[in-house]
């Protein structure tokens, strides 16, 4: 080492950090200018009336730390942090740098899929690392709900009414977290296909013999019978058709691909509040769990069960830290932050998966949704515009952009995921 240090000719190159930042600023400026020019060309006018108004920023109540934080441009800081972490680290500094990070945040480097961590060009790539196959075995019990990621379980329980309890007794509503419960666009936009006659509503006093052929009837029947087990088994009634028996057998077997999705084409959430998903006969209940990922944890998330994702809602909110301290002190933190709400169904009925961003980890990637852009100036502008347009129509702004997932099979009606499938992850900045 001494010889190498003494004898190697040292040639210094300037690291163009300032130049890079300036270049990024110029690119951003150019993009903004082009967008504005396009808007003027498209809409034919210029001035304040054509410019989307900023969505009013919610100033949360809380201790002084929270108030100070609410004055900061958190999203801009997060984006800057992301850009900073994408800067290439000099080759010989990577090992000591990543080892220092691993030491501080408790990363087990033996689990990292790449034996040579120098292949990660920057902290951003290291943060989004993959693990060696087999280091995260799935619970063998097919009836287990799996942890979607490494982390710490901060809160879990049963939802009573419409409220989810946050740490230390603070609560927020499911409506605020997931958005209003609305029917799937595919079902509200078009006349539904007749439902297989063998699917019987199971509410007391309902014979379940009629063929559903109109949207109104569908909603009515759907309002009575909305859980997959009810539809599959027909409650305590006997099976009417070999097809229903087959579907039930498939759904009972979690290893059967597409088992859940096979029947979901006939399901919809209906225009009921989320808490109304709890069946009137107490067959099912709504549960929730909150898993916190620390900076050193593996930051990709996986499917906790076999389920079908029907819709995605992107809430372009703020990016407060989601540290356990702030979760204790800032009520409704998850309803303020930028998040992606994935709504769908599993064997037992409704299922939702909500990755919530944070200041340092603002970008949420969903593998099967390439169009999703989180923590982006463009999506923020789009949200501002949507809020503006809603205000012009005299309607309240829903607060999210929604997309539905289609599948190759008509009966699938969404993106099917099997337990343990990688769904996406959190990226730095």
């Amino acid at each position, binding site marked *: 080492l001494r010889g190498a240090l003494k004898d190697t000719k040292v040639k210094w190159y300037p690291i163009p950090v300032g130049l890079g930042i300036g270049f990024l600023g110029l690119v951003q400026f150019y993009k903004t200018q082009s967008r504005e020019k396009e808007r003027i060309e498209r809409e034919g006018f210029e001035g304040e009336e054509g410019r989307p108004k900023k969505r009013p920023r919610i100033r949360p109540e809380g201790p002084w730390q929270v108030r100070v934080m609410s004055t900061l441009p958190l999203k801009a800081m997060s984006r800057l942090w992301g850009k900073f972490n994408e800067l290439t680290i000099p080759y010989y500094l990577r090992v000591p740098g990543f080892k220092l990070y691993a030491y501080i945040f408790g990363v087990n480097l033996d689990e990292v899929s790449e034996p040579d961590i120098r292949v990660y060009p920057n902290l951003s790539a290291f943060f989004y690392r993959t693990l060696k196959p087999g280091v995260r075995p799935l619970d063998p019990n097919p009836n*287990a709900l799996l942890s979607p990621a490494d982390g710490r379980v901060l809160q879990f329980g049963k939802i009573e009414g419409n409220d989810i309890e946050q740490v230390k007794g603070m609560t927020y509503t499911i409506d605020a977290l997931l958005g209003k419960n609305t029917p799937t666009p595919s079902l509200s936009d078009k006349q539904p296909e007749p439902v297989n006659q063998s699917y019987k509503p199971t509410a007391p006093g309902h014979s379940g013999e009629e063929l559903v052929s109109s949207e109104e009837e569908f909603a009515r029947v759907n309002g009575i019978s909305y859980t997959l087990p009810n539809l599959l088994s027909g409650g305590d009634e006997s099976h009417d058709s070999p097809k229903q028996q087959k579907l039930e057998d498939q759904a009972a077997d979690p290893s059967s691909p597409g088992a859940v999705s096979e029947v979901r084409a006939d399901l919809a959430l209906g225009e009921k509040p989320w808490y109304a998903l*709890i069946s009137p006969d107490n067959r099912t209940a709504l549960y929730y769990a909150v898993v916190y990922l620390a900076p050193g944890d593996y930051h990709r998330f996986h499917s906790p069960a076999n389920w079908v994702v029907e819709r995605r809602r992107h809430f372009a909110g703020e990016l407060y830290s989601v540290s356990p301290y702030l979760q204790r002190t800032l009520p409704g933190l998850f309803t303020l932050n930028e998040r992606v709400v994935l709504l769908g169904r599993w064997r037992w009925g409704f299922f939702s*998966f909500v990755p919530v961003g944070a200041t340092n980890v603002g970008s949420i990637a969903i593998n099967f949704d390439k169009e999703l852009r989180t923590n982006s100036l463009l999506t923020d502008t789009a949200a501002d515009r949507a809020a503006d347009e809603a205000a012009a129509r005299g309607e309240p702004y829903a607060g999210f952009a929604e997309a539905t997932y289609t599948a190759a099979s008509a009966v699938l009606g969404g993106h099917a995921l099997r337990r343990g499938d990688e769904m996406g992850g*959190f990226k730095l900045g």
Partner: protein
Amino acid sequence: STIVLVFEAPAAGANHPGAKGGFSWAVEKGQKVKMGQALGYV
């Protein structure tokens, strides 16, 4: 970053084939978990 799961599952004591005792949690508050570990069982 945080992940929130909200889901419907059989209630305890539900008389449904396969549901048995309903959904039960297999973790405690504050417990560290690894991906793939069971949070609960139906």
